[in-house]
Each structure stands twice: as structure tokens, then as C-alpha cells.
């Protein structure tokens, strides 16, 4: 115990350095160790292994398609959150909110564009990512289950996009969802019941808008985020990105 070394003056002098050190929790180590600590010492980066195979870095192998899908998801979460500040899930107000976003809200039109185009892009990139995984045979053992999670992520992406499609409450939205919900009613036995539960009634109206809104902004994004976490986790548990076996 070196109590003599402690002084309040010294603490104040050292304040910025001590705060920085308490956050990063790093210090003495070789360059190699520091680089490793940068990954496993960080909550957001530690999904990554400390070292990756050089094959995972080959842009011509993955084209970064999965990563692009994830980035689009992040952009969608951020822009969607901002859009929620100006949107009301009501048949009276929804369309007027759209017009407000277009003409009144600062950056509103760009925000809506970002959300809409990212959503289209995400569907496309998730599909392309699936094609990449198929053509490189990356769903084979031991990665079978991660492929299954990926299929569910594709479905969640499609549902997210479909539920979001109704929210502007314009003609495009109304009739696309009318047609979509009627397709569900062709399901044997349960069809009409599923449609009734999906719309919360017999026709596309206030209840349907509210249900689609709740699914779109809470339920499905949470499901997607959870599945994404498992998807990333399984990449490492299944031995990293796939690569030729004879290397």
C-alpha cells in the first residue's frame, strides 16, 4: 500500500488518461497482443475471432454479400427508428404523415428514401448472399444449421419488407396487402383463419395497419436481430468462413 503516492491533485491531472485506460483496459503488451486485445476486449468486436484465415479476406470469394446485408439491416434500424418519430399507425393519419415527411420534416424525404431503398437492397443482397453460399457449397457439414438459420433470416427479411409495405397507406400498399393476405387464405384448412388473424378482421383496415406496424417495428426486428446473433455466432462455432479443404 503506497498511500503516500495518492493525491487528489494527481488524480485530476491524470483524469483523461485514467478514463481512457478504464474504457479500453489495455496497456502493456506486445504489438501483437494489443491487436488481439483490441478484438476480444471489445464487446462489439468480439464476435470476430482474434485471427482470421486469409481466405476470409478474399473479396472475390464472398463479395462481402452477407456483410452488406447486415449493414443494410443496421441502416434500416437507424432510419426506421427516426421515421417512427413522425409516423402514426392510423388510417386517418398514416398517409398524411407520409406527405409531411416529404414536404415538411427536415431531411424527411431523404430518410424515407434511405429506408425504402435499403429495404429493397436488403432483400436483393440477402438473396445474393444465399446464392454465394450455395455456389461455394458452404452449407455443407458442419455448417448445415447455419444455412437453416439463414433461410429463416431470408423469410424474416421478406416479412419485414411486406409488413413495411402497408405502412404508407397508399394505393400500392393497400392493394398489395389485400392480394397478399388473400393468397394466405388459399392455405388448406387454416387459410381463412390465418387471414383473419393477420388482418385482425375481415378486411384491410385500422386493425390490419396496427398489426402490421407492431410486427414491423418491434416483433420482426427483434426476431431478426436474435437470428443474426445466432447466425454470426454459428459462423465461428462451425469453424469460420468456408474455404477449400486442401489448403
Amino acid at each position: 500500500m503506497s498511500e503516500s503516492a495518492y493525491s487528489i491533485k494527481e488524480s485530476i491531472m491524470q483524469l483523461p488518461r485514467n478514463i481512457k485506460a478504464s474504457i479500453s483496459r489495455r496497456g502493456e503488451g506486445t504489438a501483437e497482443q494489443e491487436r488481439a486485445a483490441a478484438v476480444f476486449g471489445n464487446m462489439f468486436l468480439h464476435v470476430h475471432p482474434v485471427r482470421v484465415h486469409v481466405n476470409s479476406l478474399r473479396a472475390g470469394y464472398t463479395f462481402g454479400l452477407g456483410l452488406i446485408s447486415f449493414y443494410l439491416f443496421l441502416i434500416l434500424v437507424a432510419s426506421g427508428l427516426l421515421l417512427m418519430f413522425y409516423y402514426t399507425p392510423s388510417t386517418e393519419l398514416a398517409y398524411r404523415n407520409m406527405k409531411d415527411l416529404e414536404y415538411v420534416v427536415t431531411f424527411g424525404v431523404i430518410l424515407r428514401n434511405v429506408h425504402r431503398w435499403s429495404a429493397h437492397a436488403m432483400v436483393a443482397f440477402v438473396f445474393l448472399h444465399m446464392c454465394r453460399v450455395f455456389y461455394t457449397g458452404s452449407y455443407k457439414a458442419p455448417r448445415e444449421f447455419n444455412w437453416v438459420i439463414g433461410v429463416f433470416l431470408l423469410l424474416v427479411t421478406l416479412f419485414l419488407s411486406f409488413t413495411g409495405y402497408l405502412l404508407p397507406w397508399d394505393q400500392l400498399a393497400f392493394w398489395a396487402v389485400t392480394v397478399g393476405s388473400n393468397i394466405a387464405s388459399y392455405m388448406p384448412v387454416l387459410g381463412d383463419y390465418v387471414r383473419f388473424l393477420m388482418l385482425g378482421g375481415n378486411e384491410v383496415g385500422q386493425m390490419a395497419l396496427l398489426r402490421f406496424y407492431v410486427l414491423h417495428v418491434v416483433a420482426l426486428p427483434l426476431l431478426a436481430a436474435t437470428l443474426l446473433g445466432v447466425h454470426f455466432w454459428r459462423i465461428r462455432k462451425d469453424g469460420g468462413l468456408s474455404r477449400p479443404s486442401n489448403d
Partner: protein
Amino acid sequence: MQAAKKEEIFPKDPNKTYSLMAIVDGDSFQVEKGPEDTVQSWPHLMVRELGLFLLVLAVILGVSLLFNAPLEEAANPQHSTNPAKAPWYFVGIQELVSYSALLGGIVTPALIVVSLLLLPYLDRNPKGTGVWFSRDRRVATILFTIFVVAMVILILIGQFLRGPNWHLYLPWSN
């Protein structure tokens, strides 16, 4: 408890003699190479990831500044649009639905999803992992390509070749 299977990794050749020649102080031949051809995630992987994120964000922002998201007139349950089209990724399904609602709208999508889910358990051929269009799995590649091309063609027909009353028309004819 089963005894672990004992297997020598480098079995001794009885025709040879072995001896330790020397111990040298210094770096191994693996310096700057890492075990099993790996590199540090930071910075090699993460700098690339950050670059890709900035690229994605820039492209999305650029597109959003140039093109406005479509917004039609307010929903009116009394007048259906002509033609009423689903979002582009469902237009392929809608094209199938225009032939038969049960077959195109329920049976085909269900078949697609089920076969996608079962795919890794049916295709147990261990060859061809990690290589694009591996020659060892030509059949799988061809089948999947047929599926992708069919989806793309259906989407293109539905999106660009279907006009009022869902009649076929050519995009340049009015």
C-alpha cells in the same frame, strides 16, 4: 471410459535413424505468417469491414438523394389499381398466382422454403466446399441455377411485361 485411439502422427521409418542435431535460438519460419495462414483480425479484417460499411452507406445515400421512393395516392378500398402489383420480390409469386392461386401462392412457395430448409441435410456430398462452381457438384449447381433463373424470369415478366388487366404487353408499346 474408452481409451483414446493412439495413432502416431509421424510414424517412425524403421529404415532411418533419428537424432536431434541442434537447438538454435531465433524466430521460426512461421514469423509474420501466423498459424494456419491466419492474420490478425485487427487491422486486416476490420479495416476492410469499415471500408465496406462506408461504401454501402455512401451508395444508399447517393441513391436516396437522386431517386424518391414511390408514393401513390391515399389508399381507397373502393378503387383497385389496375394492375395491382405486389412488391417486386413477390411479383414472381404473383405471376404464378395469376395461373393458379393455390399452386402458385401456397404450394410453390412452401415447396421452395421446405427444399431450402432440407437442402443441407439432403446434399451430404462433402466435396466442393469453399470453391465457386465446384466441378464435384455440377448437378447441384445446375439445379440451383435453374431455380434462380426461373425466379428472375418470373419477376421480370411480372414487373415489366404485365400491364392493365394483367395482360401481357411490351414495355415500349403504350
